[in-house]
């Protein structure tokens, strides 16, 4: 177990080091996220206060599109110069490669959320203080499920000639139940001022479990050098 954790940290650490060195993904994703928030915010509620419902929906749009970009970029690093081949040659369980990529994508998505969410709070006068723990929990659980599917399909799409946009077309429909649930819970938290319930957490947890297990089991079968 410790060995598996060390391997995951080694692989994810390598990805994050590459990101820190190149600064390609996070900067791009944050700019995209901010653009989405600003453009949709201005388009939906020019000159008037944005409702919590609209604010949470806009935030999720930013997370989703930013997330897809993260998935493409982190898997693209492995395709450059066929580095993935060297990884597959190594005596490493492919399931651990999947978990490490998932961790990397989650860290980058949380980085996106750390910048885009405060921007939305200011821009939309969105009162996050009503339930910050609920917001954080729903966002994190939604991101885990979304990243689970996105990480899997980024490996599939990156090995085909049909890149650029295909990932979003595949991942968004698959994640629709999770995204709709997350958004509905957010609307209840901030639009209707209800607390986060065990049922809400259980529902998102069930989605996460299904997405994680099915993706982890599938990943090693579809990963090709």
């Amino acid at each position: 177990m410790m060995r598996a954790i060390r391997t995951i940290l080694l692989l994810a650490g390598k990805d994050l080091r590459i990101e820190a060195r190149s600064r390609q993904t996070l900067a791009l994703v944050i700019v995209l996220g901010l653009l989405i928030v600003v453009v949709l915010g201005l388009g939906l509620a020019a000159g008037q206060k944005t409702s919590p419902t609209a604010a949470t929906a806009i935030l999720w749009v930013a997370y989703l599109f930013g997330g897809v970009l993260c998935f493409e970029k982190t898997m693209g690093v492995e395709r450059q110069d066929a580095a993935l081949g060297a990884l597959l040659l190594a005596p490493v369980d492919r399931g651990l490669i999947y978990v490490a990529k998932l961790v990397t994508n989650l860290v980058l998505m949380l980085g996106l959320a750390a910048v885009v969410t405060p921007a939305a709070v200011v821009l939309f006068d969105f009162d996050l203080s009503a339930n910050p723990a609920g917001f954080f929990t729903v966002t994190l659980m939604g991101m885990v499920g979304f990243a689970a599917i996105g990480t899997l399909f980024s490996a599939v799409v990156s090995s085909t000639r049909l890149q650029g946009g295909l990932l979003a077309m595949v991942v968004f429909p698959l994640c629709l139940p999770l995204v709709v649930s997350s958004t509905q819970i957010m609307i209840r938290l901030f639009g209707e001022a209800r607390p986060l319930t065990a049922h809400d957490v259980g529902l998102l947890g069930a989605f996460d479990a299904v997405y994680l297990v099915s993706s982890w089991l599938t990943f090693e079968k579809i990963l090709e050098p």
Partner: protein
Amino acid sequence: MVSEPALQDCPSQTCGAPAVRAASLGVVLDERPVLRELNLEIAPGELVALLGANGAGKSTLLRALSMLIAHEGRLELFGQEVTKDQPDLRRRIGLIAHQSMLYRDLSPRENLVFFGRLYGVDNPAGRADRLLGEIGLADRGDDPVRTLSRGMTQRVSIARALMHEPDLLLADEPFEGLDAPSTHSLQEWLARLAGAGRTVLFSTHDVGQGLALGRRMLVLRRGSLVVDQPTSALDGERILQELTTP
């Protein structure tokens, strides 16, 4: 040059087994047979040259032997049949491919240490430093790989493949992009590896180089093995004839 440590431990029943044994080996890519009915045996410590025209299947054979792609027929490495996920077997294989298989935003040292850790190499930083010295890149060890020339990148790629001291080194045109001194160093290096009991199979387009360096030569034509003989029994003209026969 490299001082070679002892070969990795092997289970008693597989010690003394051929490094490579293939029976009716085939590979199908995109529904097209690329390798057909290959029968091959390579003993530990052999230095074997692999020749063939473009598209003959050299790279595919090396990738199949490195367990990167699926195969048909029977393939054994060090006496163990290659099935699916065999980390212990993977640990004994090194591959130098057409592409560098390096992370271009990391430095050569970071790449080597990373792969060393993946393979569980003792003191990966020390081993990386030693290899960087061997390939003459100690002073460029901390620059990103993307800033290195083609030849330098190739040398780092070779160091990556040797980082975990593999018992079987598969090299796909390893001399491509190397200048004359680096080519000479690599030739010495490969000969020394074989001398230390490690098995080396390298592909090349240069018939003269294959004959001079290899102790044995394999020639592939359209996915089939048409020559498998000691280089001492071959001459350049015969090889060229085999290569150009339609």
